């Protein structure tokens, strides 16, 4: 069988970056939530905030580690698998990646030690500061990487010479390219929404089991407030982002809408099978004028269709079309959940409605699926270009053999599957153990003999991971 190295390289990049994005999605939201809890603990002194902070730090620690190791892969994969791309854009994107490492990764790495191991060794205020630095690092990282990604979607401020090498004319335009603010806001808000529903789901699980009730009530309440504010915000941001796409990436938008002919007052296609061969939608269910309303805010706005560009310039429409519907569908479900939570809160039944606890548990993983679907929409919708309208993906590949890429792809599958299983196993144990302090007398005692006051301790961890050597009531015997 003949293997196509470009397809394999795309599969490998899609798989490794798709796996990677799960962790930043989780840690961007969670880092800010932990900073909030650390601040509340500092200002109010209520131990419930401390317990919640320690509990979520335990999950944050392993998710952060997963993000670090899977992100390292990407910084080398871009050169190894996409040498043509690297050659073209090094002058433009190289500094953005380097600034990400310089400002964000070092900031996170420099303060994560204090966040995880420093409680009790630094003041509450200093711990809050360190939490803010790590949260700020995650947001800075998102800013740089989304500036780079957005430049690939809507390139500006740089021109390619005869050899296809880009040279920068204006850094401001490169970074603040036209889709960057929308993409950044949409992604950061997605992380916050995802984090909110994870916190809600885990808190609901404890309420449902009747364990750790005090902390779980506080966690559930905070998460549902955040969800109520953030989910509508996210839908609004998504709408703005979509209208930005309409202007700057019309072909992608046409694929999202499943719109083949350039139309005045286009309908919204709820569901259909977009046929690439026949260049039309099969089995379509349309709602007249609706797309025109939300895209152009008028009854008869004109929207460009897929047929406006030649076949070889179109993305694979069904993938973009369905990925978008998965994302939006989940967004609507999450909005419904947030609104239901608000109604229950208004009726003073938020903490004891069992069916709603089940619903909240079920929504916990949905944010991740929506993020993957959203990235599939925007990245697959950019094809066949790696730099929209300028550099084709097939011209961006590296001179490596298909077998080398296939072999490493296979190893990535096996390794990442194992990582996911191990993560879920340990995360599950942490969740089941819950936010209660392991030993009320001195919760920071995690191993026999550790003396927190001595200045020489290294390598203690946040309270709670299984004190090695102590019996574990829940699982150990």
């Amino acid at each position: 069988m003949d293997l196509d190295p470009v397809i394999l390289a795309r599969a490998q990049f899609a798989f490794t970056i798709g796996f990677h994005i799960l962790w930043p999605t989780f840690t961007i939201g969670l880092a800010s939530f932990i900073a909030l809890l650390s601040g509340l603990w500092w200002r109010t002194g209520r131990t419930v905030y401390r317990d919640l902070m320690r509990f979520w730090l335990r999950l944050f620690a392993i998710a952060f580690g997963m993000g670090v190791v899977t992100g390292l892969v990407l910084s080398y994969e871009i050169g190894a698998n996409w040498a043509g791309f690297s050659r073209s854009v090094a002058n433009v994107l190289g500094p953005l990646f380097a600034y990400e490492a310089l400002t964000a990764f070092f900031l996170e790495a420099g303060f994560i030690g204090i966040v995880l191991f420093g409680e009790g060794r630094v003041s509450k205020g200093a711990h809050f500061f360190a939490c803010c630095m790590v949260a700020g690092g995650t947001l800075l990282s998102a800013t740089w990487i989304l500036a780079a990604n957005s430049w690939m979607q809507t390139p500006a401020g740089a021109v390619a010479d005869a050899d296809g090498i880009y040279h920068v004319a204006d850094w401001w335009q490169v970074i603040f390219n036209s889709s960057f603010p929308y993409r950044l806001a949409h992604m950061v808000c997605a992380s916050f929404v995802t984090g909110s529903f994870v916190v809600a789901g885990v808190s609901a699980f404890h309420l449902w089991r009747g364990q750790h009730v005090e902390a779980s009530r506080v966690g559930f309440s905070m998460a549902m407030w955040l969800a109520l504010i953030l989910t509508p915000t996210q839908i609004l941001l998504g709408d703005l982002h979509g209208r930005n796409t309409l202007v700057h990436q019309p072909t992608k938008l046409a694929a999202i809408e499943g719109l083949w002919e350039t139309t005045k007052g286009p309908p919204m296609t709820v569901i259909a099978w977009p046929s690439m061969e026949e260049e039309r939608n099969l089995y379509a269910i349309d709602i007249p004028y609706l797309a025109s309303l939300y895209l152009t805010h008028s009854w008869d706005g004109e929207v460009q269709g897929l047929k406006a560009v030649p076949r070889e310039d179109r993305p694979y429409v069904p993938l973009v079309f369905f990925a978008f519907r998965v994302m939006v569908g989940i967004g609507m479900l999450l909005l419904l959940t947030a609104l239901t939570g608000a109604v229950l809160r208004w009726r003073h039944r938020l903490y004891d409605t069992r069916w709603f606890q089940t619903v909240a548990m079920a929504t916990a993983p949905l944010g991740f699926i929506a993020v993957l679907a959203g990235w599939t929409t925007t990245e697959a919708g950019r094809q066949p270009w790696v730099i929209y309208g300028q550099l084709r993906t097939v011209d961006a590949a590296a001179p490596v053999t298909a077998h080398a890429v296939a072999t490493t792809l296979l190893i990535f599958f096996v390794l990442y599957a194992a990582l996911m299983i191990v993560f879920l196993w340990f995360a599950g144990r942490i969740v089941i153990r819950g936010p209660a302090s392991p030993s009320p007398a001195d919760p920071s005692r995690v191993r026999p003999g550790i003396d927190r006051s001595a200045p020489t301790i290294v390598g203690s961890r946040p309270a709670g991971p299984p004190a090695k050597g102590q019996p574990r009531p829940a699982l150990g015997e």
Partner: protein
Amino acid sequence: MTAFITENYPVLFAAVAAFCVVVYVLADGFDIGVGILFLLAPREQNRDLMMASIEPVWDANETWLVMGGTLLLATFPPAYYVLLPAFYLPIMFMLFALIARGIAFEFRLQSQREWIWNRAFAAGSVLAALCQGFVLGGLVNGVPMRDGMFAGGSFEFFSLLGLFCGIGLVCGYALLGAGWLIWKTDGATQAFARRMAKRAVIATAVMMVLVSVWSAWSVPEVAARWFAWPNIAYLTPVPVVTAAVLLRLWQRVWSGHELEPFVLGLVVFLLGFLGIVVSLWPYIVPRHVTIWDGAADPQTLAFIGTGVAIIIPIVLAYQANAYWVFRGKTKVLDGYGDASQTGEESKRM
């Protein structure tokens, strides 16, 4: 001043890139070294302590690898898009190894089955060092290039020199790791580290000689660089000083100066790095692209240079602070070394 900086951009950024590589090799070197020694330690408590000693710093150490990679893309693009495909397999396997190593930190302490994570940690450390050695050996050998791109096969990277460099790095990192442990631990773990340091000095010395002789013999450009007159007069001190430092290190392993073996180990690495720079200068892709031909656009260098000049000192300051916060001997268990204590028993539960 500005004109001077602009004219000398390639040299300045070659120095910055070299600085990042050196910091990475020294910093991640000792924590990879601890991993290489990991399974050789006699008891589980030794391993607890060894891992605890590097736990707060390994993440920042490894960040220099990301910094180095992205900085190469930004400042010397050909080094990124020619060398990474050329060393595709060793780079990828190094990444797999670093993943195994990195998650072992997170999961070993959560787990009752420590042996799995001990093995993942040690195997990842050894494999990462070996892969880096293959890249290094390949660099000295040079890579085939056509039309500005890598032109060779997947196994082009393999060479005897690379294998020797790989083994040499395993030994050298083990030496750094042992030096670190002598400094940061005491009792049985420190005694173990001193024993290991003794062996690692010999192994490192042997491998350095082997790599030097082999590269001079198999790569004519390297021989020409070192043995041509007057180079040989300037360069003779490099191997002489290296030998002297190794000898001193051998003598000081059991001395009361607990920091000295670690510092001398770092000096050995710096001298080794200097030797490689001498062999490869001024190429960024050996014997194809010089640092002047391979540098990125001046406006790109100016943009990233501003950030490097302002931020790298701040980064170094707070990383130094992290080492200061976690200064002194690492402790995990009270009464450490006393096997009758809780730790030993509870392992058997």
